[in-house]
């Protein structure tokens, strides 16, 4: 980018803290086409100054040296296809966090302007993509969540295709006569209205439903998914813009619950079997066909059990309450006893729970079922009962409230199986083939479990996180998965009941529609919503190392035969993890590249007189760590002025060359602050933070070989709300770097 304008704001305390004139002369020294100082740059007049400079052709890029890039983002947004803008955080990183008028503060501000200028100089304008976008939403699974998603998408004006593997719509719920109440006063059984939902979906003109159907393949990318479906009437091909996977859950295999008497006596049945009885000929005791006098329900059968399902299945307590209510409605003379560890009745189900408890024949008691024995009349042995001792309870029928297992496929495991199978035949040495055979055996259970059959390098289905639930940012972005444009909903995503699943389907449909609309505008989706810059791969220099295709958290890249990456731009979330991975440094974004950040590092002043001024580079994730830093500044928390902050898209986009550049320039230490990683990760790009930790671990080993202290590099995990930790992290690191002494490469 050429013809850069520098716009310095003196508002919000910047003018008082810094000699802005000096910064203006720096801009002149750097060769800025124009330099303007304004008392309130975000005011309409201030913004008009910048806009006028763009419009009259004075500048092609603006360096806005004012507040943090996270502040005033609407004011300083110009047409991204025509105007390059770089923000320098004089307010948060200088005026608010360092002593006013101090020499170090002025040097810091000067550095920040130089760094921002260097980055802007390396920024190019994006070339917007123009693709034809399909607006159809494909819903996989026709249960409650899928139907809710289909209805929502159709009502938002999108064509919908529902693919259901069973022979009817409505899933498990369709088989029930009554449901847990979902409307006031929430205390009586509610007739099942699933037929209304089915009718609402099927009556829409632009909704197509395929039952007894399966997905043969999904290829392409958001806005352009090419879908092949197998149905009893033959194959169908269609295009879809986004996918909602709502394939639901199935009951936990009660065969594994021998300790609860399942299999030993026919009078121990599962909740789903009881539902069949309630829907069919009535509740009877399997051994004699008579109405049972006392029915004992055992909650958490398989759930919250480290041996089986470590999680709460969320729906079983409500199911049991409904079944108890149905039984008392038909047979007030039957006694029911529910044995629970904790009844979990969130929201309004609590009212239903209280109403069911008031039935004369219903009892709820806490206890742990030690065993269930007997054949005709069963003896339920409770330990740790509230009565203070072990207790035996007789029952004519025992109902196990079995947990729910998601109907998911583990895309990564399936791929591992496929790759290993292939290698076991094609690998060069016998040892390699043996090894591959072992892996294939280990993952053999995943053979043929495909659901979506995605044509993705990283596997044919959504990656799962734990217990078979597809990866999802549970708290912040619930419907997100690791495949752009494919959203998980319902009990596939997390254990939930049908009321929650309805909301879930709606939420996932909103995300699907949002994704299609963003694709139509050539924009990235969350978290860099609105970004129109696309990564550029300089493939002539690609060595087919496959790091980018392996490490992309969203499966953006496929591979050709040789292993060269093939970009599917509409799957890309612009995190730059591929850029951080590439050893050849051939991947770059118009406004974010290895070269741009390296230039920022080069623009940093490194005093040779070390005793006074060490230099630290802080690579800070723009998603959580940067807001935390800004929050610290907003509270006027101060930190060490030797630190130069470079905001980056994700810790995973850190290219190792930046560390090498920093150290060879004489920078004394580099700290990287990113999101928490692991099972409860907070990384907006799922794996970026974790990958950075692995890569930096390798770098530290290299440093030691070069006789540099590995302590000069530090990677820190920080969550969004931990702004109070930031000064301690930076100050402590600076202190340790001082203790290490000057970077031996300084001055070379």
């Amino acid at each position, binding site marked *: 980018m050429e013809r850069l304008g520098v716009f310095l704001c003196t508002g919000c305390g910047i003018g008082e803290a810094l000699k802005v004139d000096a910064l203006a002369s720096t801009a002149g020294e750097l060769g800025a086409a124009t330099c303007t100082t304004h008392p309130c740059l975000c005011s309409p007049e201030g913004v008009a100054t910048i806009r006028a400079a763009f419009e009259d052709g004075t500048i092609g890029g603006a360096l806005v040296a004012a507040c943090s890039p996270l502040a005033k983002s609407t004011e300083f947004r110009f047409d991204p296809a025509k105007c390059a803008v770089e923000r320098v955080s004089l307010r948060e990183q200088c005026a608010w966090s360092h002593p006013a008028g101090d020499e170090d503060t002025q040097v810091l501000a000067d550095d920040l302007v130089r760094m921002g200028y260097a980055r802007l100089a390396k920024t190019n304008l994006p070339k917007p993509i123009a693709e034809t976008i399909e607006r159809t939403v494909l819903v996989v699974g026709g249960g409650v969540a899928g139907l809710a998603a289909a209805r929502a998408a159709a009502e938002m004006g999108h064509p919908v295709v529902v693919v259901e593997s069973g022979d009817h719509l409505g899933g498990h719920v369709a088989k029930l006569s009554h449901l847990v109440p979902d409307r006031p006063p929430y205390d009586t059984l509610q007739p099942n209205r699933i037929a209304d939902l089915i009718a609402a979906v099927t009556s829409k003109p632009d909704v197509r439903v395929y039952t007894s159907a399966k997905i043969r393949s999904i290829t392409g990318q958001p806005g352009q998914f090419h879908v092949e479906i197998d149905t009893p009437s033959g194959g169908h091909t269609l295009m879809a813009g986004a996918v909602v996977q709502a394939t639901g859950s199935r009951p936990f295999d009660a065969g594994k619950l021998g300790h609860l008497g399942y299999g030993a006596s026919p009078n121990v049945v599962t909740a789903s079997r009881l539902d069949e009885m309630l829907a069919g000929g009535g509740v009877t005791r399997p051994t004699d066909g008579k109405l049972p006098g006392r029915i004992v329900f055992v909650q958490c059968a398989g759930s919250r059990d480290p041996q089986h399902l470590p999680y709460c299945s969320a729906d079983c307590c409500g199911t049991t309450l409904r079944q108890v209510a149905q039984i008392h409605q038909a047979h007030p003379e039957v*006694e029911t006893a529910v044995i629970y560890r904790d009844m979990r009745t969130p929201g309004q189900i609590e009212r239903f729970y209280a109403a069911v408890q*008031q039935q004369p*024949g219903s009892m709820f008691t806490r206890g742990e079922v030690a065993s269930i024995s007997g054949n005709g009349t069963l003896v339920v042995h409770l330990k740790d009962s509230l009565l203070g*001792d072990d*207790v035996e309870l007789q029952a004519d029928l025992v109902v196990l409230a079995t947990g729910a297992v998601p109907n998911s496929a583990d895309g990564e495991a399936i791929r591992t199986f496929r790759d290993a199978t292939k290698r076991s035949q094609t690998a060069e040495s016998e040892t390699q083939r043996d090894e591959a055979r072992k892996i294939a055996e280990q993952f053999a259970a995943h053979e043929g479990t495909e659901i979506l059959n995605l044509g993705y390098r990283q596997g044919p289905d959504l990656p799962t996180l734990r217990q078979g639930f597809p990866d999802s940012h549970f708290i912040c972005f619930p419907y997100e998965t690791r495949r752009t444009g494919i959203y998980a909903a319902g009990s596939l995503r997390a254990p939930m009941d049908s009321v929650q699943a309805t909301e879930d389907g709606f939420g996932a449909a909103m995300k699907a529609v949002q994704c299609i609309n963003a694709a139509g505008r050539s924009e990235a989706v969350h978290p860099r919503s609105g970004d129109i810059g696309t990564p550029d791969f300089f493939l002539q220099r690609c060595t087919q190392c496959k790091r980018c295709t392996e490490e992309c958290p969203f499966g953006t890249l496929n591979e050709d035969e040789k292993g060269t990456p093939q970009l599917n731009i509409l799957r890309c979330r612009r995190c730059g993890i591929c850029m951080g991975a590439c050893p050849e440094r051939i991947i770059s974004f118009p406004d974010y590249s290895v070269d741009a950040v390296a230039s920022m590092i080069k623009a940093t002043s490194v005093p040779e007189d070390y005793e006074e001024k060490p230099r630290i580079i802080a690579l800070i994730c723009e998603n959580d760590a940067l807001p935390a830093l800004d929050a610290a500044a907003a509270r006027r928390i101060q930190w060490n002025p030797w630190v130069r902050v470079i905001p980056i898209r994700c810790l995973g986009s850190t290219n190792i060359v930046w560390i090498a550049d920093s150290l060879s320039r004489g920078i004394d230490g580099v700290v990287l602050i990113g999101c928490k990683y692991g099972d409860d990760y907070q990384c907006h790009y799922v794996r970026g933070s974790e990958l950075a930790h692995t890569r930096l671990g390798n770098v530290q080993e290299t440093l030691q070989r070069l006789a540099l202290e590995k302590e000069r590099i530090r990677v820190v995990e920080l969550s969004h709300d931990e702004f109070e930790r930031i000064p301690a992290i930076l100050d402590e690191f600076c202190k340790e770097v001082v203790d290490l002494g000057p970077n031996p490469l300084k001055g070379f």
Partner: protein
Amino acid sequence: MAAIPSLAPSLPAREALLRRGAANVGRCYQCATCSSVCELAPAEAPFPRRLVLLAQWGLVDRLAADPAVWLCHQCNDCTVRCPRDARPGDVVGAVRSLVIEKLAFPGFLGRLVGAARVSWPLLLALPVLFWVALLSWTGHLAVPAGIEANWAYEDLVPHRYIYAVFFPVAAWVLLAAVVSGTRFWKLIGSSGQRQGSLLGNLLPVLTGVATHDRFAKCTAAKPRRLGHLTLLWGFVGAAVTSGLLIVGIYVQHLEMPLALAHPYKILGNVSMALLLVGIALLVGNRLGDAKVAGASSAFDTFFLSLVVLVVLTGTAVELVRLAGDADLGRTLYVLHLGVVMSLFLTFPYSKFAHMLYRTLALVHARMTGIDMPKQ
């Protein structure tokens, strides 16, 4: 190893409790708010949570052997604070009525009074009809001709008939109370090792009853405590007056009716005033906040109504004599004798029996040391 108790949650027992006012017993989810807020619950053996749990299972035998049932005054501090509206106070109240019936001697009378919801007309009418029959047989049903203006009730019903009826009735009630009390004493004995003598511990318990010191710890039911205390002292005063009158008639040979300024008369009238204030407070409490008052089961209402009838007919009997209407006086007097007899006869089987069981439970609690209130 002790054998594992085999329990059956009992639908009939639960239904019996539901009928007796524990309608919400099932709603309890054992959060123990009730035990935490109860000012009377001992720290080491808190209630009423435990009692509600036993009631949910319908384990009446265990409830009958639990002295905690009677340490509760149903002030309803728990019911007011229960997050789930399970009304623990009502549950324990229902349990008490069930235990009274279970320990009754003879059992059929317990069941008869226990079914007050349907049997109340019988329980009231039989004693009244008995008096009508007795007086008509002995020729005292009619007001004697030429009765003087300053008539006394002995002119209408000679005292000998009253003695002839009420001394045996009292003896019978005492027998029934002793039998039931002994059963109860044995049952609760398993809940702790007693030390000291029954009589030695009875005196401090009665002192406490006289001041309602335990009841004073309850916050939700302050007005009810005052009503209950007033009523108690009204009854004590009335009983003392009756004793003094026997002395007055047969030792001092006083002329009846006594003048209003006579000390015995003053004592009697003050007692009557206390009784009137007491029932007014208690009835007012019943008509107020249902949570503070507790459930009004037929069992409760029967007893309270009986007390109200005794006090009101008693008051009316005196007022009518002062007005001089002998015909109306005779009618009211017969009615009064009938309801007093009903109160006496149902004592071991009605809510009145709490006097017996609560006193015993308090003595037991003192002797076992379980009644150490929370700090």
